[in-house]
């Protein structure tokens, strides 16, 4: 590209504070600029101040304004830059000295005393002026034909009506309509230009500051003015994600967004891009690309005009903003009172409060306020309410979280969203907001429930509202890019190694079979005992798998047995000769009186989870020790039907009933010696168990006779290949930490699924293959009568064609059973080697809640059990 080209093409690259604060990152910047220059593009590099410098300049302003030692602050900032010159390996930095002298002069400027805004702008601008001056030297040293450009030559602050003097100087906006004269003028300069983010020319000729998100916005303005090919924002993450990756590691990179979607996502939570930088590029139709400076090879997020008008509706992202305050105003005036809203909003304006969301009804209007320091630490809310009181009945609802889903065609998605809406249905939703552009749907709930986001993200995917199969929009998961998890097992599942054995076995059997690998059971048991040394006693929850050989293997590994019915106690006794009484824990729910009597007679530890037994059958408990199951008031788990805590759950004694439970126990002459709570199933977060342990231990201190704590089970098992395995070592460490604080309590757990799920598979032959409406239905000889989890819990089990394991998986199949129920589906949209009649299909991770939940529905015998 030569300077005299008729139509120069530009690219604007913006680098933030961390990207300009190390030598290696500057090498990256030089390389990226050179690459683009090599592609016949003129390059404009926009930089922020070195990291921490803008804060340091703000502090210098404070120091100078309050009469402190501003020269010392200036010297520290100068020192940082001079040391960086050395760190960059430069002999010197011509031009830098001039800025440092300016800094020293400004630090002593008499305007400091009045906190003069023009003076503040000049001070703040120095960060970028210095970093860009250093940058020009670095790029020059890298061999680029680079020229330093003062951004104030081209960016001029716009005068806006109603602008405060502060905003007119320190939070300005600029005109950014494409400027052909500028395109031509810059084409006469060097092909690589380096300039400043954050600063602009004030209409009076002085300096102005763009304020928050300023550097991104500078890049966007320059891109728009130059009608650039694109603006590239280089930051510390590969782009925008479908959720905050720190909270949802499974969130997906958003490969492509249109301006409006990106604007919504940036406004409702994503921190990677300041929302204000999108308007200039949208107006000029310039694409904006977000990229990771550390990992330039990652593809990033491309934001551009909407491409497909008739694109399928879908949710692109979900986010939560916390610290939201709602002000609900109930009108006390007349029907259709004229000017009510105008009166109300005028009061908000008077207190300097800006309203975000609005919901209204005939007699109520509710608005949301974003968090600001002023809001939390001053009496502005009290003053606001006092002024509102004469016109309405006012109520302040806080702290809240606004959970927003962003995507095109939200309204047409309502049916698809039903599982997500059901999740919100369990919460107190204070406000729902949806704008007419149909791009968002926001629910305002209690702040603590911002923790729903990971579950909601998963639900959006499962419900098909977030269409991950749209590969043009969704890229890899954050965890895949930045935290590649260890594969769930160092080795492949046992059934791959024993495939021939399994095929031979089924060949001699008539009908489907559950097959269990005891070596896997023993390995899981041993792993649990080793990792969870803080747990004094583990009881295997035999409801997960009651096969006698499985029970024996687990008992031999040192586990007790947890039973939920008298029949389970009998089965445990039959399977394990000489099972010691203290190894039996009986934890029934709504069991009849005689089961408690028998369990005590057997010598088992007995758990009571209601007041009824203590109140109505005191004689059964006289002189006994019991475990009390408490409902912690909330639950957890992989599906609503497996959550066993909370008001919706039938399990446990409510917290408010504990004093009564204690009184009844005393009256019955029995001692509560252990507290128990169980949250649910399939819990993968270590913190959940740690918190439950700590909570129960703290609760136990109100029960002097309690010496043991049972935190139940529910240890998550990876069902999908990309499910992260529960970090047993971390769990062990977390429990040990809690125990250090509560050494007086013995700790019990009741794992079930964890020991057996991966040890079992279901084998069944293909009966028929049907093609209908573009789908391939693969029928097996058994279905929900053997394995009901997919139908009951929407559980996902890996499915493979064991007969053709080595053939390419080229057919998308709906794997179903023979039961006359539409719900008899074992797996949807599974890519398998084309199955044929007689092929053996393996359903993996079926060792838990498989055979034990089987039925003879349709009078079809479920799969029999075989132990290897």
């Amino acid at each position: 590209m030569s300077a005299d080209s008729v139509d120069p093409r530009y690219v604007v690259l913006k680098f933030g504070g961390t990207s300009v604060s190390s030598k290696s990152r500057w090498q990256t910047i030089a390389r990226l600029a050179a690459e683009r220059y090599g592609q016949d593009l003129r390059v404009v590099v926009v930089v922020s101040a070195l990291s921490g410098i803008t804060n340091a300049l703000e502090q210098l302003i404070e120091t100078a304004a309050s009469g402190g030692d501003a020269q010392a602050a200036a010297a520290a900032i100068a020192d940082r830059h001079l040391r960086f010159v050395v760190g960059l390996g430069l002999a010197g930095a011509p031009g830098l000295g001039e800025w440092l002298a300016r800094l020293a002069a400004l630090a002593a400027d008499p305007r400091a005393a009045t906190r003069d805004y023009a003076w503040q702008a000049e001070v703040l601008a120095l960060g970028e002026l210095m970093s860009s001056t250093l940058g020009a030297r670095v790029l020059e040293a890298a061999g680029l034909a680079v020229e330093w450009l003062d951004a104030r030559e081209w960016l001029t602050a716009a005068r806006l009506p109603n602008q405060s003097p502060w905003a007119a100087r320190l939070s300005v906006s600029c005109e950014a309509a494409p400027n052909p004269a500028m395109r031509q003028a810059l084409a006469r300069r060097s092909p690589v230009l380096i300039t400043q983010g954050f600063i602009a020319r004030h209409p009076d000729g002085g300096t102005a500051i763009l304020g928050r998100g300023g550097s991104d916005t500078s890049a966007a303005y320059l891109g728009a003015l130059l009608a650039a090919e694109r603006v590239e924002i280089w930051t510390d993450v590969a782009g925008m994600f479908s959720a905050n990756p720190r909270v949802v590691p499974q969130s997906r990179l958003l490969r492509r967004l249109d301006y409006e979607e990106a604007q919504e996502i940036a406004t409702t939570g994503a921190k990677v891009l300041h929302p204000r930088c999108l308007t200039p590029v949208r107006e000029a139709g310039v694409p904006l690309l977000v990229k990771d400076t550390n990992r330039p090879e990652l593809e990033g997020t491309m934001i551009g005009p909407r491409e497909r008008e008739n694109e399928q509706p879908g949710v692109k992202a979900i986010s939560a903003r916390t610290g939201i305050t709602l002000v609900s105003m109930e009108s006390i005036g007349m029907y259709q009172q004229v000017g009510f809203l105008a009166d109300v909003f005028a009061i908000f304006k008077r207190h300097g409060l800006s309203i975000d969301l609005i919901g209204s009804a005939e007699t109520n209007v509710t608005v949301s306020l974003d968090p600001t320091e002023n809001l939390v630490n001053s009496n502005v809310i009290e003053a606001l309410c006092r002024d509102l009181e004469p016109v309405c009945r006012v109520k302040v609802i806080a702290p809240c979280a606004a959970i927003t889903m962003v995507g095109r065609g939200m309204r047409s998605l309502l049916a698809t969203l039903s599982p997500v809406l059901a999740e919100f249905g369990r919460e107190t939703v204070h406000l729902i907001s949806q704008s007419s552009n149909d791009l968002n749907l926001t629910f305002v709930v209690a702040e603590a429930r911002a923790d729903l986001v990971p579950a909601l993200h998963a639900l959006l995917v499962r419900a098909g509202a977030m269409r991950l199969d749209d590969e043009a929009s969704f890229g890899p998961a954050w965890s895949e890019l930045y935290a590649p998890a260890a594969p769930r097992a160092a080795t492949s599942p046992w059934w791959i190694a024993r495939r021939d054995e399994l095929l031979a076995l089924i060949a001699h059997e008539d009908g489907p079979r559950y097959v269990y690998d005891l070596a896997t059971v023993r390995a899981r048991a041993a792993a649990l005992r080793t990792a969870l040394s803080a747990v004094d006693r583990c009881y295997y929850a035999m409801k997960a798998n009651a096969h006698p050989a499985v029970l024996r293997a687990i008992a031999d590994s040192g586990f007790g047995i947890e039973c939920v019915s008298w029949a389970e106690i009998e089965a445990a006794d039959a399977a394990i000769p000489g099972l010691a009484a203290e190894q039996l824990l009986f934890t029934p729910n709504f069991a009849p009186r005689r089961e408690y009597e028998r369990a005590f007679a057997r010598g088992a530890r007995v758990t009571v989870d209601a007041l009824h037994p203590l109140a109505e059958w005191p004689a059964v408990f006289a002189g006994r020790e019991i475990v009390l199951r408490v409902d912690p008031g909330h639950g957890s788990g992989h599906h609503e039907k497996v959550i066993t805590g909370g008001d919706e759950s039938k399990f446990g004694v409510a917290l408010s009933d504990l004093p009564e439970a204690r009184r009844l126990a005393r009256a019955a002459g029995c001692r509560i010696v252990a507290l128990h709570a169980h949250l649910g199933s399939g819990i993968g977060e270590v913190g959940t168990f740690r918190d439950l342990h700590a909570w129960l231990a703290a609760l136990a201190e109100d029960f002097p006779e309690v010496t043991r704590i049972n935190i139940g089970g529910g240890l998550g098992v990876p069902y999908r290949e990309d499910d992260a395995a529960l970090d047993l070592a971390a769990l062990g460490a977390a429990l040990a930490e809690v125990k250090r604080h509560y050494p007086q309590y013995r700790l019990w757990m009741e794992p079930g699924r964890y020991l057996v799920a991966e040890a079992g598979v279901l084998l069944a032959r293909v009966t028929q293959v049907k093609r209908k409406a573009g789908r391939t239905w693969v029928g097996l000889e058994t279905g929900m009568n053997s394995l009901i989890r997919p139908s009951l819990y929407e559980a996902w089990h890996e499915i493979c064609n064991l007969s053709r394991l080595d053939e390419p998986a080229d057919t998308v199949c709906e794997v179903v059973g023979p039961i006359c129920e539409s719900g008899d589906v074992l797996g949807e949209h599974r890519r398998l080697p084309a199955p044929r009649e007689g092929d053996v299909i393996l359903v993996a991770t079926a060792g838990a809640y498989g055979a034990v939940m089987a039925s003879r529905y349709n009078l079809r015998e479920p799969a029999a059990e075989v132990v290897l």
Partner: protein
Amino acid sequence: MSLPDPRAARVFRFVRRDWCADEARVDLVYAFDDGPELVETLRFSGAPRLPAERESAFAVALDLMHWIAGVSYYKAGVPPAIACEGRVPDTETAELLDLVYTEGLAEFAHQNGLDLAGRVRFPRAEAAGPPALALGLARRALVPVGGGKDSIVTLEALRVSGEPVLAAWVGASPLIAAVVARSGLPALRVERTLSPLLFEMNRAGAWNGHIPVTAINSAILVAAAILHDADEVVFSNERSASAPTLEADGRAVNHQWSKGWDFERRFGELVERHVAADLRYYSLLRPLSELAVTRRFARHERYDDVFSSCNRNFRILGERPGSRWCGQCPKCHFVFLALAPFVPKLRLLAIFGRNLLDDPAQAAGFDALIEWNAAKPFECVGEAVESRAAFAAIATRPEWREDELVARFRTQILPRLGASVPPLDALLAPAGPHRIPARLAGFLDADR
């Protein structure tokens, strides 16, 4: 090994206490009859070496600690006799110990249906010990930090007065560590390990229940003060801690007796007479009501995201408010209510992460605080009149009045309480006896 049942024991023995200067560690050894030794260990990590001239005073402090800390073990069996196999306490000390073991265990006794009156009698030496000498301790206040609002008020008041302060705590609570770190003050920690045999005895059915933990911590910190060369141990117990929490069979039971004035006065005088003449033990907040303490706390925003007065979650640290405040216990209810008149509403809600006064499920908890169809909880919370005054104060405030439980108080409860609700200001004035040194008198009227 099966342990003998302590409830069948005849005598509780103070076997010995061993001080290991090299490790700054003391082992406190107890036993029931001829049963196994119960050993409690305290480590004063980082303590400077004790000068020889303070050794005898320190030895007296260790004896006192040994005797008082024994209450944790004694209660497992409550045997009829007590034997001291090392030094025998003098009469004045023995009388205080008798009180610690009866009044301090009153709630325990009530809960377990035991009668301790006349059962506890420490052996006592005829001759009074030598009077305590002045040790020439440095002007420094050792302030026990509990992680809650009270000790923060004390720390900050002393800091503002320019007093040298050492923040101290017993145990390993990360919450306390976080509060101390936030204060930026120099700190000392005493590590305390109870005998694991005690837990085994409890599992086997020994007596268990509430113990006078402040008495134990007081004795530990008096010893720590001598080690660390500090001339004051300044607690943060307020006026209402002296009030009985319950009347049972004609006896007053105070859940927090060792936080009360009676213990403070007796223990403080004993320390000056028998341990070190220049070591003062007092509570800076003694003449203040809970509300007055709360109002003072409201000034210290910088602790908002680290402190907690909740008893439930207090030993495990979490980032979110929900892991510091359970929101369901009497302490959470009281602190929330007592802060409400004094801090901006949104700040209070940010501290707790939720609005307890807008949650109908908490109605019974707040009713108990104001003794509305319910008894005051067995916990360290303010008096009912304070809770009523706080409620009445926010009931007039526009940002609070429509919240569920405030509206309920305003429309259903307040009209029936009538004149029994004093104005807030009436409850903020300091009153009652205290041991605060004259030089700090300004603290009491600092904000009037």
